[in-house]
């Protein structure tokens, strides 16, 4: 759509600007403020420059939390995106069955995150949980409070359970925008199942898939509540991801300076990756409008 230049449009965005400025810029300035100062209590602060940033960027603790976080986000994306596409391709196209699938699949997305944690905490318990009990009966050594591997498996399966539906719904939306004529043409040409996927369905899903990857990357990178409820970051530090570590540092130990520097580095990583995705998405949008 051709948009006309009109500077008065600023009046329409002013409320949003003021509201978000209040709830984003003021807190962010507080963080920046802490990140360059040290305190001995009594509200006395003095300037330390980039000391906290150097400390965080060189700390073993930050590196290992970042490593776990990258591994977690990578695994989650590698499982959820192909699985989501696979399921979306096999969804009923219309009628009550399609509605029922959509409603049931969307359900995990609307469960409060700590309840998701509680559900899996109970479900995976050896004594009272269906999954844990079944695995124990099969002779599998599975205890997510003690074994790091079991804890990781639990957290990953929980995230797949929680968020794969988002990918499914996005892909389903992309697929339902394909006119039937495309499929008929493919059938007349004798195209294989793979060719239909590769040359008709995948290109149509490209934009929504980018949004899906963007949203899943952002949210998995910021994950806090669900693993915190299930494993508390343990056993040891095995499932301590960036947010869990940050909250521990800021609220638990009250190390304001390092926590603030941590926050900014963390935010910048998310922002950088998301910016790359966003640029790709908008470039796609612009191309589609041509």
């Amino acid at each position, binding site marked *: 759509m051709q948009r006309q230049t*009109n500077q008065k*449009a600023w009046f329409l965005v002013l409320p949003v600007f003021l509201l978000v400025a209040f709830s984003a810029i003021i807190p962010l300035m507080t963080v920046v403020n802490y990140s360059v100062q040290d305190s001995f209590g009594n509200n006395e602060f003095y300037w330390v420059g980039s000391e906290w940033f150097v400390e965080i960027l060189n700390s073993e603790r930050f590196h290992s939390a970042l490593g776990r976080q990258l591994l977690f986000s990578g695994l989650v994306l590698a499982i959820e995106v192909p699985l989501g596409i696979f399921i979306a391709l096999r969804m009923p196209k219309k009628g009550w069955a399609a509605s029922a699938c959509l409603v049931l699949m969307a359900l995990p997305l609307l469960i*409060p*995150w700590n309840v998701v944690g509680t*559900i899996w905490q109970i479900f995976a318990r050896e004594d009272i949980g269906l999954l844990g009990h079944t695995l124990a009966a099969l002779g599998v050594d599975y205890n997510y409070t003690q074994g790091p591997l079991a804890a990781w498996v639990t957290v990953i399966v929980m995230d797949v359970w929680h968020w794969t539906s988002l990918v499914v719904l996005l892909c389903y939306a992309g697929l339902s925008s394909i006119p039937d004529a495309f499929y008929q043409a493919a059938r007349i040409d004798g195209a294989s199942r793979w060719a239909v996927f590769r040359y008709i369905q995948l290109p149509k899903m490209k934009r929504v898939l980018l949004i899906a990857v963007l949203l899943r990357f*952002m949210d998995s990178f*910021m994950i806090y509540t669900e693993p915190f409820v299930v494993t508390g970051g343990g056993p040891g530090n095995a499932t301590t991801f960036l947010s869990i570590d940050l909250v521990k540092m800021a609220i638990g130990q009250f190390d304001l300076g390092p926590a603030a520097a941590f926050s900014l580095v963390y935010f910048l990583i998310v922002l950088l990756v998301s910016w790359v995705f966003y640029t790709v998405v908008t470039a796609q949008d612009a191309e589609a409008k041509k």
Partner: protein
Amino acid sequence: MIWHMIKNIRFTPIFYIIFLMLPIYWLLTMSLKTNAEILGGFSLWPANPTLANFKTILTDASWYSGYINSTIYVVLNTVISLAVALPAAYAFSRYRFLGDKHLFFWLLSNRMAPPAVFVLPFFQLYSSIGLFDTHIAVALAHTLFNVPLAVWILEGFMSGVPKEIDETAQIDGYSFSAFFTRIFMPLIGSGIGVAAFFCFMFSWVELLIARTLTSVDAKPIAAVMTRTVSASGLDWGVLAAAGILTIVPGAIVIWFVRNHIAKGFALGRV
């Protein structure tokens, strides 16, 4: 055999839905059991289904007030987010203005901010202006990620409405506000519904910020639940019942937007 079934078109969604429903089913059965039955032995369904756990929650003010508090700030948040996002989304979809692209990405960048980063500064900000432990504080704090999302969704839906409609209304002598509320908003009704759904959803499921900004008067149900886990510990039946009750509002809301949900998740851009 199994591979054959997976290849069959109908079975994949069914397997997936079974995988999704099993943990929820397990929570439901536990909510219908007594604690003695939960810890006494393993059974796939309750031997003597009881509603005692639900009764505990619905009659104890420290439990049910959690639901009321959550509902109040979620509704407040949805209203505030939509009220400011509607005009802004219109501006982004119809006009070019100084810094529009930068402003749009800056808004979105707030959706990308890890809530953990904002926990401490929010606590200090809302304490210093005397709003700590109020519903409005949580509602305002949640606008951080809901307003950008609402703007993005609404902008997607508004861009699908042809501009000729705006021009025709202007020629017919409608003022901007009359045009916007009487003609334009009904046209993007499903978009507004979807945006409201998303604001509801992300405010309802969030715990970290809501818990940090409240102590007693505005304590959300999610926080009430975590307290019970740590303190009295093992009242599994009541915990499960509380969990089931937090799923109900979401299920109702999904039912209303089921026909728009797929498009909504694609942020109106399909």
